[in-house]
């Protein structure tokens, strides 16, 4: 067992004729270090950092490029924004609000990108779900309780995704075309539903009643500072404890696990992010009066992120999604119900988009025909890819959507602060996307080149 993970330099040599006898450690280490996650072979924090640097230099992605990108965005915009307001607490909360929609749409898109497919419809499927919810909750139309409205809106999104997924998997139509058609149809359906009721096409969340208030609060409501601190503390402690117990159990039983120092570093990072987040949100961000506290959408996004992380990393469904994205034929031969899993991935993509749509409508306090769904779809794909998810399937994580969404929100926010209008935002975002796809493509080429060289 131990020789499987030890540094080959210190591992006991295998008996001649056994295993890959002729292949000396020196042969494989130089190349292998490029494509093995460093935490697998590192026995100490120093090893880990060294392996990390080698991988970084080789262009192997992961979340590092996007985190570096976020740092660059922060520093540059902080330095050149008038009055250095980019990193001020109120602007950061604003930035998070602007990013929220793209974060959730990015997480949605990851389900289908992992399969090597694409969903171009979510930019309009998301507001369709939201408009259904709003129409159901508006006192002048159905006047349903908010939770029923949300449930039906999300269900409609899920069914939309299931229908697209069925067309793609059962009738073998290309996802590009099916979801492009879905984008157009959803745009029409949105305009249809907008016109229902006495709202002249502009149903608003600013009306009377607690149910509308609830939808309004998704983006704008805040959680009391004391509650936020306690909840954040419990969350960080829970996640940290879980991580620590898992890693130390695996270390104790000789399984592959990162060194203790690395586990501690991870926990410290999670704690730092939590403290920074609650700290930023606790500052008064209103010009007049007092607005502070963690906005509701932050825990909403964290719940979606946590749920999809568990689904993708810890369940059979998630494992099968990765397997299908990596090698559909291998998945089929392993007895995986490929068509069913793919249909579910499209369903979950649209369902997640529906959650994003609710946040979108909540931020705008209603919906109008002024939805730029085509652009939102492309930003969702961009967010996932900028975050580190591969367009070629099989590689990606839910967190990539969140990080990529932050990049897009950051660019949008920074450009706005500089007084540069939307044309510059498009151009800069376009180039950021180009760089991200290049990183993905190059690291992929590097990886496959490596294994060909081995053969």
């Amino acid at each position, binding site marked *: *067992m131990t*020789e*499987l*993970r030890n540094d*080959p330099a210190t591992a006991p040599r*295998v*008996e001649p*004729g*056994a*295993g*890959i*006898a*002729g*292949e000396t*450690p020196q042969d*494989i*280490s130089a190349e*292998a270090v*490029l*494509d*093995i*996650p460093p935490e*697998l*072979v590192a026995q100490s924090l120093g090893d880990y950092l060294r392996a990390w640097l080698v991988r970084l230099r080789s262009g192997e992605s992961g979340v590092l490029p996007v985190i570096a990108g976020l740092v660059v965005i922060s520093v540059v915009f902080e330095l050149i924004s008038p009055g250095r307001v980019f990193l001020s607490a109120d602007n950061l909360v604003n930035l998070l609000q602007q990013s929220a929609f793209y974060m959730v749409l990015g997480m949605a898109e990851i389900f289908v990108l992992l399969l090597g497919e694409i969903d171009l419809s979510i930019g309009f499927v998301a507001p369709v779900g939201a408009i259904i919810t709003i129409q159901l909750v508006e006192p002048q139309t159905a006047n349903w309780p908010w939770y029923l409205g949300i449930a039906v809106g999300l269900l409609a999104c899920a069914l939309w995704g299931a229908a697209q997924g069925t067309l793609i998997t059962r009738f073998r139509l290309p996802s590009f075309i099916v979801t492009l058609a879905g984008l157009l149809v959803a745009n029409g359906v949105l305009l249809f539903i907008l016109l229902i009721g006495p709202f002249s096409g502009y149903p608003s969340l600013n009306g009377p009643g607690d149910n509308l208030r609830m939808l309004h609060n998704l983006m704008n409501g805040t959680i009391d500072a004391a509650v936020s601190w306690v909840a954040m503390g419990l969350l960080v402690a829970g996640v940290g404890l879980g991580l620590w117990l898992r890693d130390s*159990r*695996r270390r104790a*039983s000789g*399984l*592959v696990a990162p060194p203790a120092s690395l586990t501690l570093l991870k926990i410290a990072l999670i704690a730092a992010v939590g403290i920074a987040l609650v700290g930023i949100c606790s500052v008064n961000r209103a010009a007049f009066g007092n607005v502070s506290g963690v906005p509701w959408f932050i825990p909403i996004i964290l719940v979606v992120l946590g749920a999809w992380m*568990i689904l993708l990393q*810890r*369940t*059979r469904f998630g*494992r099968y999604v*990765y*397997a299908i*994205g*990596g*090698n559909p*034929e*291998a*998945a089929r*031969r*392993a*007895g*995986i119900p490929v068509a069913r899993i793919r249909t579910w991935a499209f369903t979950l993509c649209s369902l997640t988009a529906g959650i994003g749509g609710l946040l979108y409508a909540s931020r705008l306090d209603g919906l109008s025909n002024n939805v730029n769904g085509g652009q939102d779809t492309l930003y969702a794909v961009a967010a996932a890819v900028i975050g580190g998810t591969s367009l070629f399937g*099989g*590689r990606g994580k839910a967190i990539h959507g969140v990080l990529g969404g932050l990049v897009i929100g950051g660019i949008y926010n920074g450009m706005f602060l500089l007084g540069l209008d939307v044309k510059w935002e498009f151009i800069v975002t376009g180039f950021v996307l180009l760089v991200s796809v290049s990183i993905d493509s190059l690291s992929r080429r590097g*990886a*496959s080149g*490596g*294994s060909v060289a*081995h*053969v």
Partner: protein
Amino acid sequence: MSDTTTTAGQPLLQLRGVSKHFGPVQALTDIDLDVPHGQITALCGDNGAGKSVLVRTISGIHQPDRGQMLWEGHPVHIHSPREASRLGIETVYQDLALADNLDIVQNMFLGRERLRRGLLDEDDMERTAAQTLSDLRVTTVRSIRQPVGSLSGGQRQSVAVAKAVMWHSKLVILDEPTAALGVVQTGMVLALIRRLRDSGLAVIVISHNLNDVFAIADRIAVLYLGHMVVQASVSDLDRQRVVEYMTTGTAGRNGQEAGLAPAERSQP
């Protein structure tokens, strides 16, 4: 890993008069084949001889038109790869069917993941996979958690074989296991196949490479245009005659070996 309690003398798998056609093409005609426990049976033949069809028939992808398959002496009808797995037949195809983006453990358990409280039981799966690899002495992979895409060709083949034997299999079928490998890696894979045999498994190896066949096989079966032309212990054959069987369907142009094939067919 292996059920070594063998019924004395009885081959693990016997094919009797198995035939298979696809439309007008007769792919297999009246095939008899014995696959004993604890031996490596090499299946040779030129392109189109029917090796793949035969292997796919044994592993449940094709159903024979006629003939009988006896598994441990009992007649069986294998309708799907899944049923073959249930009997203990695992096949490693030439493309290995590994997902490059998944790690070794994830690939070995693909489609048969173990769960604990509804979630993947990674610890248990990793332990089992590590045990299987160490039993097979596949020890030079740097980490059992590295993606399969980062492995060398020989290591990938080893993982595919380990994946096949982890499920209490009794018969492992390997399709051209050394076709894409260099000299060193070929030696490594051949050593691995010998270890399978030594642990009591029956092994069928399809190979074009007679060097490899003579290096590991206990028995050689040669197909020619869908017919089984010879089936004999490796000591009764030599390279020259196997080549003749593969290319002409008979051997012994000089006449000295005429009539050998039917005689050999009776002795496993």
